[in-house]
């Protein structure tokens, strides 16, 4: 197993995630793309953990997972709030700066 095969897979996922963040209008879909990015990062962390034979990578991956869970919780409640107030979760319609 090469080190690179994992890293390049992570890079592909990362780029797909970036594309998703740019291309998507729907708030939930953008959150999902962010999840993709976070997973790409996790994959890198774990791969390096194995390459270096240290535990740090896995520990950090656990931290990232926990933070991602928190992020999704807040993000989804934001999306729900927006949906409730505006009847839409399209992010473009939220450009105005007043409530």
């Amino acid at each position, binding site marked *: 197993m090469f080190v690179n095969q*994992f890293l390049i897979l992570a890079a592909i996922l990362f780029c797909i995630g970036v594309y998703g963040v*740019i291309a998507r209008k729907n708030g939930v879909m953008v959150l999902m793309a962010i999840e993709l990015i976070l997973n790409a990062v996790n994959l890198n962390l774990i791969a390096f953990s194995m390459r270096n034979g240290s535990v740090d990578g896995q520990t950090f991956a656990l931290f990232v997972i926990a933070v991602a*869970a928190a992020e999704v919780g807040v993000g989804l409640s934001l999306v729900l709030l927006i949906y409730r107030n505006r009847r839409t979760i399209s992010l473009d319609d939220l450009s105005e700066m007043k409530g």
Partner: protein
Amino acid sequence: MLIAQNIGFAIIAAIMIIGAIRVVTTSNVVHGALWLVVVLAGAAAQYVLLAAEFVAVTQVLVYIGAVMVLFLFGTMLTRSRIGRDSGLNNTYWKLGIPVALALFASMAIALVDSFGSEKMPTDGAIVNTQQISDQIFGPYLLPFWALSFVLLAAVIGAIVLARKD
């Protein structure tokens, strides 16, 4: 055994990439979430390949068991319809393709340049769960506490945001 691992990696990686592409291209929010589940499960499988059993299980527990269920819950509550959903993409969504490709190209060049054909250590020490816990509750105790506060803040924030009044 290494051949088996490489074949396994290839299959899982292919599924993950297809799944990831479907996440960002599908026209139905729930389908997107389900494809994301495929990607996350694939990631868990890759962690197992990388001998990170505990993280893999945590990935399944947190991501598939909680985060994705939350996603599906949220999308169902916002009454996503069965069938195609228009207006999921921005008007300038095509801009994302060159950006992503350029980003990938630069990353790939950097990765190939720095790691080349370096192999994973085959006799590396297997990390067991106890080591992880020693790490978290030892040197990383402070980040762990900070993370706990982040989670607490997130829980409170989510409740405050989602409450009707």
